[in-house]
């Protein structure tokens, strides 16, 4: 692989064990500017665990994650200013309106947006006119779209998305694909997981998480 781009996120020999099961070991990932990385794998192969390790929510059992060459737990402020993570939980409060939900998500990132910017983002994700509707009145697909609007406004160079296609309809999927392409064209990077294949009209790499061979597991036990 050429190292033409500036390296953004990289991992060194990541190991993840969950409930005495080795999910992956010695995982090295490198992600440069304007790169899209898809994490593939069956259910329970550790995709979500990997993403939570990449964004620092979960501690890797071994190895480390580097942001621009520095351990993310040491450069937390810079890393978290530049990265947005969207997990499979909705992060949406039913009692808040669409606009309030977006604002409170942006507030955690110390980012403020003008009402006009929010309107534009909502129009783009197909939620124009829903600004003042309490989110509990929205469908789950619409709630996912609130998160897409948040992504557009978050001003982050790295997106980490866990199963971003969940609950989205065909047009929602197309919208997200276009957002990823636009983000990449603007120099940003994306890491996402999916179990149904996503066809992006741009260059994309993928990493497969699979079942670790039994022999490896035995060796591990011997090491311990």
């Amino acid at each position, binding site marked *: 692989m050429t190292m033409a781009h500036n390296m953004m996120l990289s991992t060194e020999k990541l190991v993840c064990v969950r409930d005495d099961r080795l999910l992956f070991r010695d995982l090295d990932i490198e992600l440069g500017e304007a790169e899209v990385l898809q994490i593939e794998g069956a259910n329970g192969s550790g995709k979500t665990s990997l993403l939570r390790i990449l964004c620092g929510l979960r*501690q890797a059992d071994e190895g480390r994650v580097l942001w621009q060459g520095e351990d993310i737990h040491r450069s*937390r402020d810079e890393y*978290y200013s530049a990265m947005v993570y969207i*997990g499979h*939980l*909705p992060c949406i*409060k039913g009692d808040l309106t669409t606009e*309030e939900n977006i604002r409170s998500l942006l507030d*955690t990132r*110390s980012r403020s947006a003008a009402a006009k910017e929010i309107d534009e983002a909502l129009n783009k994700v197909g939620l124009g006119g829903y600004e003042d509707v309490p989110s509990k009145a929205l469908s789950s697909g619409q709630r996912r779209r609130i998160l897409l609007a948040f992504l557009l406004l978050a001003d982050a160079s790295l997106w980490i998305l866990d199963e971003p296609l969940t609950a989205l309809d065909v047009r929602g999927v197309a919208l997200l694909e276009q957002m990823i392409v636009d983000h990449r064209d603007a120099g940003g990077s994306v890491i996402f997981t999916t179990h149904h294949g996503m066809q992006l009209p741009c260059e994309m790499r993928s990493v497969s998480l699979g079942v670790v061979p039994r022999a490896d597991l035995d060796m591990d036990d011997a090491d311990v």
Partner: protein
Amino acid sequence: MFNAFSHLLIRDLRLALRARHELANPLIFFVLVVSLFPLAVTPTPELLQEMAPGVIWVSALLAVLLSLDRLFKQDYDDGSLDQLMLSPNPLVLLVLAKVLAHWLLTGLPLVLISPMLAVFMNVPADTIPIIVLSLLLGTPVLSLIGAIGVSLTVAVNRGGVLLSLIVLPLYIPILIFGANAIDVAADGLSVKGQMYFLAAVLALSLSLAPVATAVALRITASR
């Protein structure tokens, strides 16, 4: 940085005001328990007065304990807690905002209604300010210490009993000094010692509890 604090505080207050039925729960619990006591025991005025500090403080403590779950449970369940932990702002500050919101919504109403309950319990008028002051110093500590317990148990299904086991031993000094202050004041003695103790515990927990809570939240999320 201060913006993140105030925005989170406002968000939590707004959410609570939109779910008002939940908001009233601790207050109703407090009033009910205190007003049931005179019905259950033979209420001579002297006995009521004797029991008042203990009854008021125990009821306030349990009311706060029952409301603790609200601190992080919803945020944990819907994933908002992850977003708070991924904030470029110090997590300690955000924890402090959430605890302050919790106190404003549960502790403060208890403090405000306590004079009325003191009258129920036949507490002499000049002791009532002591009740208010002791609760004013004590209830924030209950929220601050409670936050540590909730952050450790929020991922556990039905962690209520576990939460009580973790938090109650830490609540006991507050209970003893808070109720004792009222007792001593009713006897006409100085309560400076008790108040200084409560104030010192408040200062201590204000500076240490948010740090412990932030660490506990990171541990909870790393599972």
